[in-house]
Each structure stands twice: as structure tokens, then as C-alpha cells.
């Protein structure tokens, strides 16, 4: 039974997670119960790591947005076995990172990219203003509107949103979104 090459990969994964300061990876479809569990688990993890409560609150908001993002996309017409939504939480000495990954239709990439770029181009005041405008203009029926989500994430993280679209095939890509909340600087 020993020396199974598959099993040797466990150590590689462990190393990879350490290398990128990742503590939790969840892969698969989300429902509300699972999302709740992931949130509670992260909370417990933060408690044991001694994460500041203001940071915790911000991270929570971002996680909720990121999970909503995944949920929204898993309900769309992408039903490809090759893509599994992924949700990652990690923390290092600088702060906490939240990463989501999900398939996206190639036809939607430009739209999403424009939204994030716009959000990244604004400062704190600009974001606040933009949020107000977006909230007034958004309609409930707007599927995948999600402009608000990005604005909210950027406001909570107080950092630029990092993203990537990785090509899978001619119709879909893998959309990765990363936000980081820095630890509060003690005075």
C-alpha cells in the first residue's frame, strides 16, 4: 500500500498551500448551508490566529460578496465538468486574503474587466461616490450586474482588487478574483 504516487502529492499540496499562505480551500458548488459553514470556519480560524476584529469584519463582508459572486455564476448557463468553483482563504503577516475562482463566459470577460478596472482606478472618496450612483442605477433584474459587489469589496479591502482570466476553451475562461485586507497598524 505504501509509495503510492498519488498520495505523495499530499505533501506537495501542503507545501503549495504554505507557500501561498493558504489555510482553506473549498471546491465545488455552494449552497447557503455550505457558505455559512465556510464563513463560520474562517471566523474560528481568525480567532485562533488572533486577527483584529475590525479586519475580521471587513474580511467577512468581502467573503460574502465573493461567495455571492460564485453562487451567481454557478447558476448561469455554464455547465462544464472542467470547471469547479473554488474558494480560498489565507493569511500572512500582512493581512488576510480571500480568493474566488469560477468559470465565466468569454463574452462577459470584457464587461467584468471594465468594471473591476473602473473600481481600481478610484480612490476612497471616488469609490463612495461611485457606490451611491451604482446603487441608484442598479435594478434587481440585472443578472450578473455585480458592479456593486466589486465596489463594496474594494471599499472594504482598501486595496486594489487583483484578478485574472485564464483561458479554458473558446467559450469559457476561469475568473480569479483576489482581495486583501491589511492588518490594522497598531499605534
Amino acid at each position, binding site marked *: *500500500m*505504501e*509509495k*503510492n504516487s*498519488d*498520495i*505523495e*502529492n*499530499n*505533501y506537495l*499540496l*501542503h507545501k*503549495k*498551500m*504554505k507557500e*501561498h499562505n*493558504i*489555510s*482553506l*480551500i*473549498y*471546491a*465545488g*458548488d455552494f*449552497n447557503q*448551508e*455550505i457558505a455559512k*459553514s*465556510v464563513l*463560520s*470556519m474562517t471566523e*474560528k*480560524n481568525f*480567532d*485562533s490566529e488572533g486577527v483584529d476584529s475590525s479586519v475580521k469584519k471587513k474580511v467577512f463582508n468581502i467573503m460574502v460578496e465573493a461567495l455571492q459572486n460564485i453562487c451567481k455564476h454557478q447558476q448561469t448557463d455554464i455547465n462544464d465538468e*472542467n*470547471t*469547479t468553483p*473554488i474558494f*480560498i482563504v489565507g493569511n500572512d503577516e500582512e493581512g488576510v486574503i480571500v*480568493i474566488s*475562482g469560477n468559470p465565466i463566459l*468569454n463574452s462577459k*470577460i*470584457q464587461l467584468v*474587466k471594465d468594471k473591476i478596472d473602473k473600481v481600481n482606478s478610484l480612490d476612497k472618496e471616488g469609490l463612495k461616490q461611485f457606490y451611491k450612483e451604482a446603487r441608484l442605477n442598479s435594478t434587481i433584474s440585472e443578472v450578473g450586474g455585480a458592479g456593486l459587489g466589486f465596489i463594496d469589496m474594494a471599499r472594504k479591502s482598501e486595496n486594489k482588487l*487583483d*484578478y*485574472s*482570466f*485564464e*483561458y479554458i476553451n*473558446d467559450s469559457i*475562461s*476561469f475568473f*480569479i478574483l*483576489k482581495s486583501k485586507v491589511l492588518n490594522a497598524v497598531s499605534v
Partner: protein
Amino acid sequence: MEPIANNTNLHFVRELNQYIRKNKFMLAYSGQFSHVMTKSILSLAEKKLDDDKAELNTKKKVVNIMIECMQNICSNGRREENNDALFMLKKEFNGWQIISGNTVKQNEVEPLREHLDLINSQDKGLLKKTYTDTMKGVNVSAIGEAGLSMIDIAKKSGNKLEFAFTPIDNDNSFFSLQSSVKQEN
């Protein structure tokens, strides 16, 4: 179509995703295993098993094995003052696979290997006897408490345990333990 915004810093996420797909795992936690953390991991895994429509008996077995694995990690951690370990749950064709990984000292490798080989050589009846003997203090293995829980894992799983020791440095190895539970119909 060429990717219009490919960020190399985030490429590892795609790599992880490919690895996940290939290995069909659904949950991986790497870090410290405190009591509260253990409870949250169990609760998340339970939700996931419900979502996957695991039959009650199967679910019970998976959860029990998870508890033994995490106890193993915790008791190892108490000794080493560092319980930085890995836990994973994988979906298999007709069941689930529970994986734990932690660092062990080089001198622990042989006793662990002997113990696991012994477990794997025994059938159900013999395992039960070994378990009772160990409980009574007869034949206590060189690896102590962990020895008992591995017998328990083998009993619950009903399948052979898979394991590997991957050398980390001269003094330490990474000990992976995999057990599987088949879905009951």
C-alpha cells in the same frame, strides 16, 4: 481567443483548481488544528456530505474517521508543539476518501510503518481482536494512542489504509494517511 487579462501572480489558483479537479477533492485545510477548528471542519464536511447525498451510515463512518484523524493530528501536535497539518476530503467514484497529513520525526517512521502494515494484513475479525487487546493494554504498539485510532480507522473504513512518508529533511518526514469509505446502497 487569447486571455485578455492573465495575471501570473494568480496563476497558482488555476493550478490548484486543476489539481483539485484531477484529484476530485472538495475540502482542504492546512494549518493549526485546535479544538474549535476541528469542530468547524467537521461541520463543513457534514454539510458537504449532505449536499452530496451521502447515505446516513456512510456519513457516520466518514465523520468518525475524520474525528480519529484529527485527534491523531492533535495528539501528535501536543508532543511536537507544532500541529501544522493537512486535512482533506475527496469524492471518489462510489464513496469518499479522508486524508490527513502531518510531520513526524524520522525515528517514528519505522514503528508507524510496521503498525500500518500489521493493520493492513489483518481481516475484520482479527482487527477487532487487535483493537480489544490494545484497549486492554495487551500488545500496546510502540506508537501508543495513535496506534489505537489507526486500528479504529481501518475498522470503520473496511478498506486497506494507504500511507506514505515523504522526506522533508534529515530529521522529519511528512506522513500521509488515506482511508476510504464506500457509499452504501
